[in-house]
């Protein structure tokens, strides 16, 4: 709910703090004697994608100042992980970005594999790629549904998106036993091997996903309302995006060619032929379109991975001892391209069974730092869709 704070306030310049003593002055250049209005949006707001608060100062309908307030979902992930063994942190990574548990698992496993120098069998690499791209489909589909929900299309596109999401979650559940919190990857591989049935189901999903995408795009992409609401709103320039270390689809929507799958070529991503879609304008519409185009590229990767999928081989490196796992002393930073951007884990080991330092580099939080710059001068209704296009998940922002 948008709850007006009881008093209208005036902030003299942009330097004056939102909290603390406030001065009440009539705005200059305004004959009506109107004042600025401070609105606290959230933490319970139907469209803030979780418990996130924005203190917005409005001049009429235009945003003059915006201060994000987070920490409402700070669950001490890093501190808990520093007091738990390496493997025990794996289920907690599921709950970081709760749409994409598979990619979170992979990022953490990738960091630990770097730290301990573990090799991953080829079959496991293919399984990881397949699951990560399925996760990207889940995330982007749900994001588009939520974004259009924020635009005012209450329900219908979201129901379409969640219908397809359920099909993919069925596969995750058959594999790992859980719909959302898969806890599936292990250091040096994955927990359970694919059965032929799983492969058949994934092939089925990959075969029929394009028809859903075509339907979804027909509904949304050329829609007049979506175009007039999204185009030219919340523009993020190329320079600002780079300077504020924004990553993922947001950065690519601003026209910067940076995809860690191409840059690092981690795993086996050098074996696949796919393109990195780039935006021109860096507005909300570009960010929406980037998600659609990335889903097409993900399907391309999935088709190639299913074709090349090795017949035999191990699903986990048998030399890794997961019990009493003690990597040698050192530090490692492992990063992957999660659906939201660069997800990295930084670990310091002192040779014991607990990490000395465990740090998550969350894409959602760092993409959120640019929120005020995108919202200044926009209408208050557009703040919601700009926030929606950033694609945040509060579990990852606050950790």
């Amino acid at each position: 709910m948008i709850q007006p704070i009881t008093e209208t306030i005036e902030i003299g310049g942009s330097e004056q703090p939102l909290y603390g003593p406030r001065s009440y002055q009539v705005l200059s250049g305004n004959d009506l004697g109107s004042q600025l209005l401070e609105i606290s949006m959230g933490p319970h707001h139907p469209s803030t994608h979780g418990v996130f608060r924005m203190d917005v100062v409005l001049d009429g309908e235009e945003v003059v100042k915006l201060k994000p307030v987070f920490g409402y979902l700070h669950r001490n992930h890093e501190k808990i992980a520093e007091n738990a063994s390496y493997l025990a942190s794996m289920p907690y990574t599921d709950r970081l970005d709760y749409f994409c548990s598979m990619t979170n698992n992979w990022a953490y496993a990738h960091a630990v594999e770097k730290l301990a120098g573990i090799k991953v069998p080829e079959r496991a690499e293919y399984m990881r790629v397949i699951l990560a791209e399925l996760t990207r489909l889940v995330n982007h589909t749900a994001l588009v549904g939520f974004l259009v929900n924020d635009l005012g299309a209450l329900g219908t596109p979201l129901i379409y998106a969640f219908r397809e999401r359920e099909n993919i979650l069925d596969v995750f559940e058959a594999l790992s036993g859980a719909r959302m919190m898969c806890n599936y990857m292990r250091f040096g591989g994955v927990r359970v091997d694919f059965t032929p049935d799983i492969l058949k189901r994934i092939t089925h999903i990959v075969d029929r996903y394009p028809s859903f995408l075509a339907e979804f795009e027909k509904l949304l992409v050329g829609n007049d309302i979506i175009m007039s609401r999204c185009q030219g709103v919340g523009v993020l320039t190329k320079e600002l995006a780079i300077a504020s270390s924004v990553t993922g689809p947001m950065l690519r929507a601003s026209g910067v060619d940076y995809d860690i799958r191409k840059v690092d070529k981690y795993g086996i991503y050098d074996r696949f032929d796919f393109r990195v879609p780039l935006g021109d304008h860096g507005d909300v519409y570009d960010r929406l379109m980037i998600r659609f185009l990335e889903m097409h590229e993900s399907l391309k990767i999935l088709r190639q991975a299913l074709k090349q999928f090795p017949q035999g081989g191990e699903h986990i490196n048998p030399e890794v001892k997961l019990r009493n796992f003690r990597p040698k002393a050192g530090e490692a930073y492992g990063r992957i391209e999660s659906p939201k951007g660069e997800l990295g884990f930084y670990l310091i080991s002192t040779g014991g069974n607990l990490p000395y330092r465990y740090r998550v580099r969350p894409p959602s939080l760092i993409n959120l730092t640019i929120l005020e710059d995108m919202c200044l001068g926009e209408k208050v209704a557009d703040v919601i869709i700009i926030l929606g296009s950033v694609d945040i998940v509060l579990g990852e922002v606050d950790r």
Partner: protein
Amino acid sequence: MPVDEGLRSELQKAGVFIASVETIYNWSRRSSVWPLQFGLACCAIEMIATACSRFDLARFGAEVFRPSPRQADLMIVAGTVTKKMAPQVVRLFNQMPEPKYVIAMGACAISGGPFKQGYNVLKGIDRFIPVDVHIPGCPPRPEALLNALMFLQRQIDNQHLTGVNKVRWYDDTDPAEYPIPRFGAHDLEPPFNRAVWHPQKIQRGAA
């Protein structure tokens, strides 16, 4: 209700149906439970999934998610309640008009769950507000939420408007609002509401 069966069937032929006020009251309450559109963490996604096509909460009359607490009957506490968020949850609960019900969804909402050892996590929302149904799971499946809703509907069926066991909102001695905790120097103050939560007494040494 003691009504003569012969009389009742005679009246039914004439299109007159007799029931107690309580039955009608409970029937209408249970058939249109409007939840508050309020998600905290991971469980909120499963709550949305429950409202979407495959699980379809609308079958139970509970699909109208209301963004405003003033229009809601049911609060589904879906996710981890941190100490920063707990005052707002209690405030939202206070803002809901009676009759109101609470479902604590997921391990975090009922006990702190996997994050219980964290310094910032509330160890169960039932420390501050009365919870009608607890759903375990991390996160609970959508079917579990549907089951909880059906369980709540059975509870609503059995509520009494008069007598000793009458409902909370017709009891004059019951507080209409629950005190909102503040974030003190070390912890929430008070750490729990004595009126709704009683710490378990552990019997030690008893053979």
